[in-house]
């Protein structure tokens, strides 16, 4: 019965060892997907490469369906799995700032780490900027508490918010993802940039 570390009360060293192994898998998957290339990632926003959407939605659906199945068979207690709290103002404003950073830098933090691990110098500079961004947040945090804490909605779940069952929502999400996959294949043809895609 999972989550194993909580239910079996793992010692700290074992939790940290698990974290290390999860990280190895995470870094490996991102690099194999080609997320170590900023020009591949940026393709998402100009249509010539939509790998980001395909990987992102496939991963979310696999983890969602997998965890629902484990829960159904009594192997995972989903009440003990962390659900991100929703602070509406901070989530939206933070998300918009992140999007601007994404298109300027060509990476997000996870993909930046993936690119750093194979020697991309632009990713190292991106992450250096990331350290500065984290520092600026720490230093400015006393002044932005109203934004940071505003419109707190708790650990709100989208299926409950929409008033549908988890199964129905999962089904809607899968249909939406398949539609987006189809759209992204069209985009790759319509906005194809062979001179870029042949280099990445």
């Amino acid at each position, binding site marked *: 019965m999972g989550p194993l570390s909580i239910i079996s009360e793992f010692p700290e060293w074992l939790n940290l060892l698990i974290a290390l192994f999860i990280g190895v898998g995470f*870094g490996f998957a991102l*690099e194999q997907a080609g997320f170590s290339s900023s020009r591949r990632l940026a393709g998402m926003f100009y249509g010539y490469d939509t790998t980001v959407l395909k990987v992102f939605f496939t991963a979310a659906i696999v983890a969602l369906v997998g965890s629902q199945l484990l829960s159904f068979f009594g192997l995972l207690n989903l009440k003990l799995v962390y659900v991100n709290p*929703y602070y509406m103002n901070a989530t939206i404003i933070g*998300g918009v700032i992140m999007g*601007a950073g994404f298109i*300027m830098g060509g990476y997000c933090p996870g993909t930046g780490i993936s690119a750093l691990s194979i*020697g991309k*110098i632009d990713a190292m500079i991106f992450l250096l900027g990331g350290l500065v961004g984290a520092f600026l947040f720490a230093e400015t945090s*006393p002044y932005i508490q109203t934004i940071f804490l505003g419109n707190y909605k708790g650990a*709100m779940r989208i299926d409950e918010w929409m008033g549908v069952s988890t199964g129905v929502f999962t089904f809607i999400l899968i249909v939406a993802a398949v539609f987006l996959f189809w759209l992204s294949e069209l985009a790759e043809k319509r906005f194809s940039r062979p001179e870029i895609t042949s280099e990445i």
Partner: protein
Amino acid sequence: MEKRKYMNPYLAGTLLGFVLLSAMFLSGRGLGASGGIKYAMVAIVGAVDKDHAMESPYYSKYFENGESPLKNWLALEVFGMVLGGFISGAISHRLKFKVEKSPKITTRKRLLFAFFGGVFFVYGAQLARGCTSGAALSGMAVLSVAGFVTMVAIFGSAYLFAWFFRSLWI
């Protein structure tokens, strides 16, 4: 040696999904990346100016237990990410020091925008309590509204700003 092609995106997504599912099953949590950057920053501030770190309510909470802020699930996970990425790069012959950029822009310009992109992204991630990994992807897998809103906000905003920064990429 010729560098190998990337994995099929749906296969890579399935692999990533199983990694995320393992984190949920083993540790009861999702993946993360910006959090690891934050712990690295906190450790640096603690090493450079311990007094400032102890006085500030933001930093001091990470030093309360007397241990290094790097002795932490997310920090170890990010360390593992570097190892995993390196292993993947090694087996696919992609290990190489280089600046990746459009041939139409200078290295200086690419690095300048990479730096500011990093500043913006991680500032926003701290505000939103997570980035593409910790808030958007992991959040969607547990059906949190915060996860879906973060995903829409990040990608919507990047599409909005893409026109202004198109000379960097196309």
